[in-house]
């Protein structure tokens, strides 16, 4: 059966990456189709809009109990949604395994930004193909990635470029620097800092609507909070964004009457393509909010409250949402368990090995 090339172009974008990489062996023509930029774009579009999330993966950091070092593992999302045991779907090359103090800073279109503290390395991992690229450190003189450098990864549609933002050293509100790395120009560029003395918390930047977001606190308050609690996050927090095309900052509105003060801890996230806020406190309810219409304060909606079906045992650790399906079901971690829940009920539970750090990937 000889199918014309236009039909081959229709069929192939439906395949998972693993099959596509194998089928590069079919012929030179197939290899050039599968390797082409247009095809990759088409495939990504298809994969990210697939209503069943067939190609979605969740990558988690994993600490080996006996061996030294840490690994990342990627789990196919449908298995987490339907299976009982998580299945590792992507094979992370040996070279990236067993590194010390890995930190996953987020993902964009299936590319994960990971740093390895001990070796002072930053790399981008393509979760589906398992290929990774090291990028140069933002400050080559001090090839040391301390605890106080904050990263974020996003995509600039206007120039078709993936960009890494690096904010170094966030414990030093007066003299930190903000730099942006362009995967196209392969270089770092210094940009303006946040205004009004705002300093981002030590969290990964969340990529939504072409912008990276952090929770940030005023420098004076940050210093006071550190004295009082030995860490940030005690005071009132704002959401700051950096637009990857314009490379400019903005403050993003929070929900009305939203408290970020003690005892509540707040986490910023990206759920189902929305900017989200998780608010939790020991022995109190956990709330999940999403901003349904980007930039509109009134559109913040509380989509989930943990106490609806909480198991008291999980209260202390709290629940972290991982993924929001388009039908409103939400994937949540409770310690080592990953549960799929709707508003009221736990729909499904699956176990993944020791989860430490989590992020969403397409």
């Amino acid at each position, binding site marked *: *059966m000889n199918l014309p090339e236009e039909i081959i172009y229709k*069929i*192939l974008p*439906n395949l998972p990456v693993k099959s596509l990489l*194998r*089928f590069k062996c*079919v012929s030179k023509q197939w290899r050039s189709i599968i390797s082409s930029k247009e095809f990759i774009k088409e495939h990504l579009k298809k994969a990210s809009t697939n209503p069943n999330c067939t190609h979605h993966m969740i990558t988690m950091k994993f600490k080996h109990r006996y061996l030294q070092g840490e690994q990342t593992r990627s789990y196919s999302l449908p298995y987490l949604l339907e299976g009982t045991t998580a299945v590792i779907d992507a*094979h992370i090359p040996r070279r990236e395994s067993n590194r010390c103090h890995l930190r996953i800073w987020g993902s964009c279109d299936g590319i994960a930004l990971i740093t390895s503290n001990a070796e002072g390395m930053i790399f981008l991992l393509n979760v589906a193909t398992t290929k990774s690229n090291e990028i140069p450190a933002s400050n080559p003189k001090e090839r040391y990635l301390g605890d106080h450098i904050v990263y974020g990864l996003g995509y600039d549609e206007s120039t078709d470029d993936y960009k890494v933002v690096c904010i170094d050293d966030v414990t030093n509100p007066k003299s930190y620097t903000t730099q942006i790395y362009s995967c196209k120009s392969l270089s770092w560029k210094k940009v303006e800092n946040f205004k009004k003395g705002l300093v981002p918390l030590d969290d990964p930047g969340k990529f939504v609507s072409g912008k990276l977001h952090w929770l940030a606190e005023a420098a004076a308050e940050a210093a006071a909070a550190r004295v009082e609690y030995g860490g940030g996050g005690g005071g009132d927090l704002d959401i700051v964004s950096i637009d990857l095309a314009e490379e400019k900052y903005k403050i993003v509105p929070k929900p009305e009457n939203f408290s970020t003060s003690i005892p509540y801890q707040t986490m910023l996230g990206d759920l189902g393509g929305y900017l989200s806020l998780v608010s939790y406190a020991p022995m109190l309810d956990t709330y999940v909010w999403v901003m349904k219409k980007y930039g509109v304060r009134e559109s913040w909606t509380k989509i989930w409250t943990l106490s609806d079906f909480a198991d008291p045992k999980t209260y202390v650790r709290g629940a972290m949402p991982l993924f929001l399906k388009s039908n409103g079901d939400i994937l949540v971690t409770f310690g080592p368990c990953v549960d799929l829940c709707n508003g009221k009920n736990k729909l499904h539970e699956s176990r993944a090995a020791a989860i430490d750090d989590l992020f969403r990937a397409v």
Partner: protein
Amino acid sequence: MAAETGTPTTLTLKSNDDELFSVAESAAILSVTIRNMVEDGCAGGVIPLDNVDGKTLASVITYMNGISAIPADEEKKKSYRDKFLSDKDFETLADMVLAANYLNMSCLMDAVSAKIAQVMEKKSVGWVRRKFGIENDYTPEEEAAVKEEHKWTFEGVETDDDN
């Protein structure tokens, strides 16, 4: 047309092996190719479809009738399509994708393409070459190099004894 007379109009379609099929116009115009012919007024007699054989055309008409009987409910349409394609083998699917392309039926085209991909997903490189009639134009060295680059993707591939 149907709307003017109040009675359903029936079209006659002819396959390339001279089989004749009657189908309600309302179902047949799911095909943009047929709709254009109807709109241009060239659907008076028999509509010849030179690129579709009788077996495939019968199947496409079953689909046309089935899907147009479902009211505007995307989920029901999707489950009809899934069921309709569930028992088709690769050769039948390949004939259907060619027919859907020729008839310009995007919903069938998308569904069959996705189904073919599903059938291919765990198949070997050799299976794909055979089924798609593709000649291997790599030298053994070149092929080994491409394979080496993506070695892990050859894990979990089905053996080829099933079709």
